[in-house]
């Protein structure tokens, strides 16, 4: 990645933050309302995924095939794993529990730091610890094998 990629990454972060804020994802009560399927369900966040997927999928299938490589990189780096594995299932399950408990996921957590309040700060710091914990566990596990 060169200076161009790095600068663009910053701009992409800006746009992503605008999107997260406008969509309601930075308001935990809207996230929890969306997950409150059996209570007072607020379906609005459904449209976030619909909007985002509509744009990304359109690009992926209609535009991307015409390009052999990214504009400012040598190759596309897409995820390669294909199997449904236990870590995928268990990790996703745990993530969902955390998401339902706090109403934050990683992106909104970082963007909400801009609110300069306690909750997002505690969330992000704990999230970083959680990530480090898994890296440690994963490391030990592969040493054992």
């Amino acid at each position: 990645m060169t200076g161009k990629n790095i600068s663009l990454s910053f701009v992409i972060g800006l746009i992503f933050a605008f999107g997260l804020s406008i969509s309601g994802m930075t308001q935990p009560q809207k996230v929890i309302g969306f997950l409150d399927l059996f209570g007072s369900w607020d379906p609005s966040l459904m449209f976030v995924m619909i909007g985002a997927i509509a744009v990304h999928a359109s690009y992926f299938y209609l535009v991307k095939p015409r390009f052999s490589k990214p504009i400012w990189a040598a190759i596309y780096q897409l995820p390669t794993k294909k199997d449904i594995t236990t870590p995928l299932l268990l990790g996703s399950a745990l993530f969902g529990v955390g998401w339902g408990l706090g109403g934050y996921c990683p992106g909104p957590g970082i963007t909400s730091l801009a609110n300069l309040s306690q909750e997002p700060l505690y969330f992000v710091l704990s999230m970083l610890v959680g990530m480090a914990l898994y890296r440690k566990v994963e490391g030990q596990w592969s040493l054992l094998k």
Partner: protein
Amino acid sequence: MNPDFLNALIGGILIGFATVLMMHFNGRVTGISGIINGVFKRVSQDWAWRIAFVSGLFVGGLFMKYWFPHYFLNTIQSSPRTIILAGLLVGFGTIMGSGCTSGHGVCGISRFSKRSMVATIIFIGTGVMTVALKNYFLN
């Protein structure tokens, strides 16, 4: 159309646009949990673009907070204990599960990735269960 639905759709379209830029120019998927984790992984040499992206997420938030503070209105007063537990689970779970709402939910599903579709159904599922259980015990 309901204003909340419209805001959500517009926000989603912006998010989609951001992920398209990342793919088209940088050749990468915008999985925020992975982008953050990559800063700390020992093998990672490409921390600069990751830090730039995360900085953009934060600075973008500052702009939005300044112009439209209502987007950060939080009516839920979770205890610090709950938030810390939530953060630990989200951090641990997203790395174990190789992604979150942006990586799996947006980018993965758009590519019809089986892994991502399964992951998304599961994290939404346990999210729904968690909120339901929380309400049950509080009432």
